[in-house]
C-alpha cells in the first residue's frame, strides 16, 4: 500500500463537503426480512454509510439494546451469524445497484476466525462490502486479518482513554475512517455528548488525514447535530436498533438524523 493513496469508497462517503451519517443496524433483527427492509429505509432516508452488525453471543463492546437485538437474531430459526449477515449484505447491495451507501460489517473477531479469515474476506468482497469494524481486534492483533483483507477497509476504534501513542498506532492502522468512541463504555444512548469525545476527535485529527467519525452514546438529532459540528461523521446505533422492528419508523428517524447531521456540519456555515 505504499505510495499515493486514493480514497476508498468508504472514505469518499465522508468527503462530500458535509459530515456523514453512519447508521448502524443489526443484521437479522428482529428477522431477516424486516432487517433488509430497515436497511433500505435507512439508505433511502439519507444514511451515507451503513454499519451492519453481525449477531454474536458475547458482544463485549455493546450495550443492552444491541446485545439484546443480537440475541434475538442469533436465536432465529437456523441462527443468524456472520455467514447469514454477509448473505444479507449481498442481497441488499446487489438489489440497490449504484444507489447503495458503502456498507461496513461490524463483527467480533471470533466469528471471523471461526469462518476462516481468508474465506470471510473473500465472501465479503464478493458481496460488495466496503469494510469491517472489529472492536476486539486492536491493530496489534490484526496482522492475520490484514494479510487477507485487501480491498476491504479495516476501521479501528479509539477511545478517550487512548494515549497519544495509541492514537498514532490506531490512526496509522485504520482505513476508510477512524472510529472515535465518544465515552468510555459500551454502546448506548446517553444524556449528553461527553466533552471527552470532543477532545478525542481533536487529538485524532492531529494524527491523521483520514475522516474522523464519532459514535457511542448519540441518540437524538440534536446530539447528532452537535457531534457533526466536530467530526466528519456521526455514528448512531442503539437509537436506530431500538426502532428496527418497524422499518418505516427507522426511515423517519434516520431522515431526521441525516438532516441534522448534513445541515449542521462544519462545512455548512462556510
Amino acid at each position, binding site marked *: 500500500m505504499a505510495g499515493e493513496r486514493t480514497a476508498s469508497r468508504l472514505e469518499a462517503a465522508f468527503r462530500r463537503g458535509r459530515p456523514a451519517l453512519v447508521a448502524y443496524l443489526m443484521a437479522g433483527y428482529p428477522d431477516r426480512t424486516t432487517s433488509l427492509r430497515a436497511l433500505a429505509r435507512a439508505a433511502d432516508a439519507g444514511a451515507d454509510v451503513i454499519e451492519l452488525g453481525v449477531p454474536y*453471543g458475547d458482544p463485549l*463492546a455493546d450495550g443492552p439494546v444491541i446485545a439484546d437485538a443480537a440475541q434475538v437474531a442469533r436465536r432465529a430459526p437456523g441462527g443468524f451469524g456472520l455467514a447469514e449477515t454477509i448473505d444479507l449484505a449481498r442481497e441488499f447491495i446487489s438489489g440497490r445497484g449504484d444507489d447503495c451507501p458503502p456498507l461496513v460489517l461490524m463483527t467480533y473477531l471470533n466469528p471471523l*476466525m471461526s469462518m476462516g479469515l481468508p474465506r470471510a474476506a473473500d465472501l465479503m468482497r464478493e458481496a460488495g462490502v466496503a469494510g469491517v469494524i472489529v472492536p476486539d481486534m486492536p491493530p496489534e492483533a490484526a496482522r492475520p486479518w490484514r494479510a487477507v483483507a485487501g480491498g476491504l477497509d479495516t476501521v479501528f476504534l479509539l477511545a478517550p482513554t487512548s494515549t497519544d501513542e495509541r492514537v498514532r498506532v*490506531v490512526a496509522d492502522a485504520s482505513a476508510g475512517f477512524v472510529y472515535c468512541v465518544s465515552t468510555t463504555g459500551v454502546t448506548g444512548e446517553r444524556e449528553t455528548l461527553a466533552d471527552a469525545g470532543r477532545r478525542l476527535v481533536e487529538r485524532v485529527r492531529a494524527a491523521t488525514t483520514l475522516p474522523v467519525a464519532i459514535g457511542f452514546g448519540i441518540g437524538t438529532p440534536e446530539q447528532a447535530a452537535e457531534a457533526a459540528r466536530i467530526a466528519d461523521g456521526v455514528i448512531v446505533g442503539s437509537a436506530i436498533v431500538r426502532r428496527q422492528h418497524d422499518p418505516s419508523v427507522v426511515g423517519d428517524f434516520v431522515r431526521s438524523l441525516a438532516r441534522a447531521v448534513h445541515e449542521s456540519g462544519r462545512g455548512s456555515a462556510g
Partner: protein
Amino acid sequence: MSGSLLPSAEEAYASPDAQGFFGPYGGTFVPETVVPALEELAHAFDEALGDPAFDAELGALLADYVGRPSPLYRADRLAEAVGLGTVWLKREDLNHTGAHKINNTLGQCLLAKRMGKRRVIAETGAGQHGVATATTAALMGLECAIFMGTEDIRRQALNVYKMRLLGAEVVPVADGTGTLADAVTAALRHWVERVEDTFYVLGSAVGPHPYPTIVRHFQKVIGEEALSQLREKGARMPDAVVACVGGGSNAIGIFYPFLRDVPADERPLLIGAEAAGLGLETDKHGAALTKGRPGVLHGFYSYLLQDEAGNPKEAYSISAGLDYPGVGPEHSYLKDAGLVRYEAVTDREALDAFALLARTEGIIPAIESAHALAMLPRLAAELGPDASVLVNVSGRGDKDMDIVREAGLGA
C-alpha cells in the same frame, strides 16, 4: 538437553512473549478502551516484580493472613482406598477464605493500591473468587463490586451472603445462562466504562495479557511450596501431579514450578482434570481442552467451546467453578506441547471422589477439587500400586453442601 523429547523448562517458559502469547494462545483481543488500562497494568506488574517491598508485603500477608504455607498432607487411607502407594494432598482448602483464590486477590489488590485505584471489581462463579476479592478489599479498604450470574447466585447463596457481609456489592448478571461466562462479560463491560478508577481483579489464569501471567505469578506459590515440602519430608518426586482446570489458576499454580524447576527426565506426569459434566458425548460439559477448538473469548485466544458460527457455547458442570467455556491460554499451549495431559471427569466421578475423601480422610473438598481427586483411581490403574500422586485440593467444600445433598450424598 539430553535424551528427552520434552522441551526443557527454558524452552517451555520462554512463554509468554512480549505480546502475551503462549505459542499461538493468549494475546490481547479487547476493545480499545481497555488497551491503555492493560498497558498500565503490565507496567505496574513489572515494577512490582522488581520491588522487594512488594514481595515483602505480599509475603507477610500470605504468612500471617492467609496461613501459608498450606500443609502438604500424606493421605494414607485415601491412598489405600484408591490403590496407590502414596497420595499427597496440597491443602489450599486450609487457606483463609477456603481456597487458593486468596493468593491471587491479595497480589492483585496490592497492585491496585500501587496503581492508586480505590475501587475493585471481580467476577465469580462458585463464589470463591468473589469472597476472596471481597475479603481482600475489606482488608485493604477498597470499594468492591462482584459480578455474579443469577444461576450461580442461586447455587451459591452462602457465598453471596458472605460477600455482602464483607461489604461488597453483589451485582446479579441475568444475561445468557446466568453463570460464570456471563459474569466475566458483564465485569469486562463494566470495566470498559469505569476503567479510570477501577481495577479488575481477574479470578483465573484467563483474560487478556497480562492477566494470565499475573495470575500464574501469584499462584505459583502452591507448586513452589509443594516442591520444598516434598524435599523437607524426604519424599521422592511424585509420579503424577493432578489439579482441576476450569480457567486453570490452581492448576497453573501447582504445575508451573514443576515445569520450570524440575528437569524434564525427573518431571512428574502433569494432569489437568476438566469437567465432563453429564458426559463428553452430551452437550452438558465444560471440557474446553478436550472438546473445544481454538477461538477468542474475553480478550484471549485459547481452546473454547463454541458453535459453528463462533459463538461461545454454554458450559456445564455440577461445579460452578468449572463451567466456563474457555480455559487459560497457557493450558492450551501446554496441551499442544504435550507438557500437560488433560482429561475430563464427570459429575458422577467427582461426587464419588468427594464422598471418598470425606470418609477416608475427614476432609470435605470443593467439588472443583473433587474432579482432580477423581483422577486417582485412573492413575492407580495406569501407574500401578506403588505410584505416588500429588493432588491440589484447591478449595474446601462448605459452599457445595446444598449441591451434594441434592445429589444424594450421605443419604
